[in-house]
């Protein structure tokens, strides 16, 4: 009884004071679960097609998508900082990431998985095997290389020279597509010779410089395989400013945008970004539901030429209309 009296006095003062505090605290917004999707950069419009795929898949299941990335494609530190920030903030159902680098992202990704967050690696793999909550949804780079090799063979009618530019050792997928391209040429088109191979980066002026050096060393080159959008831009810029190279045909990867503004651009190998994005979201949803998912999925790319660039499939794969639901307008791009 004694204690109750004392307690009563304390409560009589504390409760009225506590109420406004509860009122104020209750007004703060709560964080909802969402899936973070981190492309290599949000500064290039090519990644908007991935945004389209993840938003569409998320919309179906009512999943919110967090979409952000560094402003440069080679800002590995930015991607790592973003992952760490998101993991620390919590409230994530999963992470989908297109890595800027095959090695440097292993630790932050493993750290996220250790926090129980499913992670889907998109496009190009990390140099670590998939396991449990770490799943790969990749572009079929072997097939991409073969598609490019067949196209170069078709342009050159089975005979000629080709240079491979933009070999970026940071991106495992780019290395694989280069090897696959060369392997098929050696195997099936022995009269087509790879006469030069150059390391590349995401820096367009640097790629232009490399292209200049390459063309200066081999002015009679028949074709060039460009393994990234930056290399394609640099090469086309060099050729555009030097009319003596106007006969060279270029087959490129990862177009940004999917357009044929240069007469030297023959074709583009296009990844199924929306498909990979949707697949990644579905995998995270299934992992959260406790379902078994394949640890590695590879999706076939397609060859875009002037003939099929207006096709429905190309428009869908390169759509930038990320808005889910009735807003969607596939025809904009």
């Amino acid at each position, binding site marked *: 009884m004694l204690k109750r009296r004392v307690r009563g006095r304390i409560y009589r003062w504390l409760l*009225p004071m506590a109420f406004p505090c509860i009122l104020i605290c209750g007004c703060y917004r709560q964080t909802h679960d969402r899936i973070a999707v981190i492309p290599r950069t*949000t500064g290039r419009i090519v990644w908007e097609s991935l945004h389209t795929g993840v938003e569409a898949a998320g919309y179906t299941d009512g999943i919110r998508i967090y979409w952000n990335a560094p402003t440069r494609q080679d800002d590995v*530190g930015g991607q790592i900082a973003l992952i760490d920030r998101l993991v620390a903030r919590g409230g994530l159902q999963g992470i989908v990431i297109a890595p800027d680098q095959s090695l440097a992202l292993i630790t932050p990704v493993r750290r996220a998985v250790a926090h129980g967050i499913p992670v889907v690696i998109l496009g190009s793999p990390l140099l670590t095997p998939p396991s449990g909550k770490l799943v790969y949804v990749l572009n079929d780079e072997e097939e991409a290389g073969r598609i490019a090799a067949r196209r170069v063979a078709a342009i050159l009618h089975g005979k000629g020279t080709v240079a491979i530019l933009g070999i970026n050792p940071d991106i495992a997928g780019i290395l694989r597509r280069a090897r696959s391209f060369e392997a098929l040429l050696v195997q099936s088109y022995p009269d087509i010779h790879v006469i030069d191979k150059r390391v590349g980066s995401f820096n367009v002026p640097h790629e232009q410089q490399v292209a200049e050096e390459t063309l200066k060393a081999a002015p009679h080159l028949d074709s060039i395989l460009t393994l990234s959008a930056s290399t394609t831009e640099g090469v086309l810029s060099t050729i555009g400013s030097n009319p003596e190279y106007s006969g060279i045909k270029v087959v490129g990867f990862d177009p940004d945008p999917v357009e044929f503004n240069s007469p030297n651009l023959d074709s583009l190998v296009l990844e199924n970004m929306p498909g990979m994005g949707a697949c990644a979201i579905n995998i995270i949803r299934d992992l959260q539901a406790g379902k078994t998912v394949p640890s590695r999925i590879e999706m076939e790319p397609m060859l875009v030429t002037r003939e099929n660039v207006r096709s429905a499939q190309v428009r869908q794969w390169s759509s930038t209309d990320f808005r889910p639901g009735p807003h969607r307008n596939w025809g904009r791009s």
Partner: protein
Amino acid sequence: MDRRRTLIALIAGALAIAAALGIRAYLISPTRGLPERDAFAQKHADDWQAFGGTWEVSGDSLRNSSDDRGAKLLTGSPHWNNYSIEADLMLLGGGGDAGLILRSSDEEEGVDAYYGYYAGLRSYDNNLVLGRAEYGWTEALTPLDPAAGHIVALRWYHLKLVAYDCQIAAAVTLPSNPAAVTVSTVSDPDCIRAGRAGLRSYASGGLWRNVVIRQANRQDLAAMVAERDATNRSAVDPRPASAAGATQQFSPPAPRSDTFTFHASSHTQSISSLRLTSSAAPAIATIRGSVVLTAPLIVQDSTGGVSVPQPASSPLLKLGDQVEVSGSVRQNDFSSTLEHAKVRVLWEGTPVPPVMVSASQAATGAFDAMFVEVEGRLRSKAYGPGNTLVFTFDAGPQSFGAIMTRGRADYLFNKLKLNSLLRMRGVIIVDPAFTRNATPFVLLLRSADDVDVLAGPPWWSARHLIAAAFALLLLTLAGNLLYGRVERWRLRAVLEERERMAHEIHDTLAQSFAGIGFQLEAIRSGIPGEMRATHQQLDLASDLVHHSHIEARRSITTLRPDGLESEDLLAGLSACVQRMAEGGAVQVRTASHGETRSVPPRISCTLYRIGQEAIANAIQHAHPSTITLSLEYTKDIVRLGIRDDGYGFTPGGEMHGFGVPGMRKRADRIAAQFEMTSTPGQGTSICVTAAIPPPVTWSSWPKILISYLKESRRHVTPFKVSH
């Protein structure tokens, strides 16, 4: 009393709720802080928060000297809803756009990493862009009025952006030709309702001045729509216009139609190869790279960096610009310099990310003229020459300096605490002109946003330790005071309960004893005198009842706290003697010595109870003729004495029933000294000495605290009997 307290508590609670609601209403007010004007001319931009870019005050403007994509600078309240923002705006490059943001929330670094609306001028397609960012991007484009010409860099425009309900409108005019106005309006059904205002640029630097943010109403929007109807010719959006006429809706962005074509020299070399150039004869070299610092101009490629002091010809450069530099090579100790150089912009790119190095690595000179990220602990800060701020850092075995220009950095300068661990991004310079040979290198920081505070000063600094000790003492004192208050509450509850029990005994037991006594007397008067045995039994019963009645009354007297309320302890005890003696022949003498002092209720109550017990013992067992009560006050103590001239008793004899252990226990509770002296035939004397805590003042509280801590270790002096 309880009702009054409850009422006070309820009123206090209601006031607290009203205050909380009032504060909340003020904080979330959609007009708080409006209208707002920039203070760039006064070099103040402290209340603007940057997300990317390098924002600095430049003259009467704020400048972003970076080609960063989606660099933002925000200010204001997240609860602003219907308002407009307008400013004079200048693009620094031709490859992107720059403009204004409103209703922005949840901002992060990243291209479209915020929720909000944006209006900007885009030079490469000559459009007024009205966009919606939601960690994704949709936009509506309106070509600029032909009378305004093509959007070009280094020309001032006036841009206004208004949001009212779900209608967003933007208008751009040329200060030199106000008639050439271009207006774009968008109806956004699922609109973003509120947020902060800000500045933004995308792949282009910019200058902003005369930024004004004010509340908007329907008329403001209507005026812009009317202006649009009067001036706009067409919209680029090919879809049918909405029912509102030329009002557009947001759509996904179309890819850029232009390709990056630029013509570069074919005789370029890597920056690192400049160091192989012969120093015997003057050599001209051409390099390509990205601008990492504009003043002084530093250009970096993947092999290293080169400084370009005072170029002979140079366009307006921004961080991230891809440039081609031709100049005369001069060899330095760790890098090269291109003098009398000509600089040409090839492409407006995104600034390169920094290379993270340790101070020890940077101190080797291998990263001279390169953009790096270094960590260090701040050792000193000072204002330097030429409107600069100079910092010195320690990092392991190395020390280095950092220099940045004032402006937005002033706020940072004042905020940074010595010994904080910082991470900085800047360009390493080993030139003694900067280092003054005091440190191996200095870091030239581009803006205040190049500094991140990783950790404040270590908490175990002398200042913090003193503060912590002070806080601990205050906390202990507060705890002590709270304990005292709770103890008082408890004591009051005990006394209330005792009083209730006294009333109960008085109303039931004592009354019953009195009744039984009357009944026994009535029986005795009705019994013949010869029945002696019965009379003897009745006498015995009457004695027992009388004795029990006295005991009950004594208990009532003991339980009643009448004396406690009295401030005069002696008066209370004296009254107690009178009550217990029931008008008998006991004489009471009282004596007080020293200046009467305020005694805490806990102590006075205990002294009163001991006094009561001693008086009761004397009256019941010693049959004294005189009881002397004395009270003595000194600076630190109060001493109560009770002396009688009764029978006394033999020390060491049977003490049960005298209540001595109870008195000792009571004295023990207040850490008082209890002494009892008795001699057969000469009476008994009891003396209780208790310490009086000094009043709590700012100067006395440490002493109180120490004595409080000591108190728990003190013991009552053992019972002492003198012969």
